[in-house]
């Protein structure tokens, strides 16, 4: 790990100011992904701003009938919140399908959104990676890419976003709230928060330098049957090959978002009109424009079958 200086921030605005003022600064909350990457010198911050003391760890009702989840609410606490379990079951389900008990106890809501890809070439500093070292190339496209993206990819990057929580946030149409060094706040729809790789896969979100997430807001509950179906190589503590977050209403209409398919939680609102027509029609609309490799083409039929399993589960 490279040496760094460390400070404990006492207000969100002050944290954002420190991040803009200090060269090579990064926020640290749970730290479970950042410290992992720092040990490998993939992340090399010169200064860490500890935001754990900012008091952003509450879940409160909004005036619109939804919930405002503080940026520092731990994954365990969000999954266990009685209101979330009752009205946003897909979010609880997604959270408890991710990582391990130890990691969920430390990982935060904002940090989960900001975690980096687990593409093996991003982690291997002896190999090119446009995300880790812009312009160096992509070793994954011609390499081991069984678990990598098939939607929204580019010539520069085929990495997937690893979060389960973010997929549920996408299906629920959450909003990310931020503050910057000037004290200005911003509300970013989750659909616009994560970016596709394009030519700059190193830029993963729409956050400006120093901009700090303060909360994630969930709109008022939409009812329906909430399902999170995660398909992975082992039963627990593994990233998704694909995952489906679903909210299904009586009559078979509803919403679907996908993990393991793209550089961001993947949702095609237009495809949701096909849901009453079954899994094949829905999958075909979701997967329009897919670009597969010889190793990850299995994800195409897997998406259709997993949608089928979700529709079946929703009937019970």
């Amino acid at each position: 790990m490279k040496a760094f200086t460390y400070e404990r921030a006492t207000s969100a605005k002050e944290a954002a100011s420190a991040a803009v003022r200090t060269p090579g600064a990064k926020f640290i909350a749970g730290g479970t992904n950042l410290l992992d990457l720092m040990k490998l010198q993939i992340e090399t911050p010169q200064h860490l701003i500890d935001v754990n003391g900012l008091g952003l760890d509450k879940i409160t009702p909004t005036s619109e009938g939804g919930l405002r989840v503080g940026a520092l609410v731990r994954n365990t606490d969000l999954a266990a919140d009685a209101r979330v379990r009752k009205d946003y079951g897909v979010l609880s389900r997604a959270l408890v399908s991710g990582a391990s008990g130890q990691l969920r106890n430390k990982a935060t809501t904002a940090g989960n959104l900001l975690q980096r890809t687990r593409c093996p070439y991003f982690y291997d500093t002896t190999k090119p990676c446009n995300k880790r070292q812009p312009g160096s190339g992509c070793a994954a496209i011609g390499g081991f890419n069984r678990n990598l993206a098939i939607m929204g990819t580019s010539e520069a990057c085929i990495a997937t976003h690893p979060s389960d929580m973010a997929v549920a946030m996408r299906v629920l149409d959450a909003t990310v709230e931020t503050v910057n060094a000037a004290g200005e706040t911003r509300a970013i729809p989750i659909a616009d928060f994560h970016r596709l790789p394009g030519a700059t896969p190193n830029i993963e979100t729409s956050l400006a330098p120093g901009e700090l997430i303060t909360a994630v807001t969930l709109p008022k509950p939409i009812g329906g049957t909430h399902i999170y179906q995660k398909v992975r190589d082992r039963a627990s503590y593994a990233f998704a090959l694909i995952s489906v977050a679903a909210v299904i209403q009586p009559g078979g209409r509803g919403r679907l978002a996908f993990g393991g398919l793209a550089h961001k939680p993947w949702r095609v609102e237009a495809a949701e009109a096909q849901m009453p027509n079954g899994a094949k029609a829905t999958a075909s609309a979701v997967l329009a424009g897919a670009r597969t490799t010889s190793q990850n083409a299995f994800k195409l039929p897997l998406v259709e079958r997993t949608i089928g399993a979700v529709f079946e589960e929703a009937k019970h």
Partner: protein
Amino acid sequence: MHHDETFPVSRRGVIAGGVASATLAAAPVARAQTQGTAQSTPPTMPVTLKVNGRTTKLNVDTRTTLLDALRENLKLTGTKKGCDHGECGACTVIVEGRRINSCLTLAVMHEGEEITTIEGLGTPEKLHAMQAAFVKHDGYQCGYCTPGQICSAVATLGEIKAGIPSHVTGDIAAQPTVSTDELRERMSGNICRCGAYANIIDAIHDVAGTERTA
């Protein structure tokens, strides 16, 4: 518990001696490199750690993980370093009532927090119920993952009691119960290369007063 008093000639002491002589041999090279690149001293920070009821003030390199502070500064070597990346669970300790991977957090991030390690759960004379159950059910072979397994198991039963759901909880809104499926899922962050899983599950069931179902 004071490790050194219990085991006057510890394996750790012998290993540490070996490392010290290797460091001596390498020292002139390290000094030369430092002079050549004009590196400054790495930043340090004071931090007060409350471990197993005992408060200690330390001044640590900011890079020091909680795991390294426990093992290297406080000489509490019960907590083990396995992968050092949060994958194996050998470093699991309980902080403010919650189990975490001590390798993926910095010591300076735990100012004043209550930390419990395997040494704080029980002593050789007075084992914690979970330690006694691991002995009774032969829940280990080499023992390296065991302190992490036991800290994780104690916290797991607390998490079920507190109503925290898991991936295998049938009704996500209901109170979870201590079932074999629940224990397997909740303990998935602790790897045992010897494969003592079945006996570990038996030990946890024993403490919870429940029985293995599969």
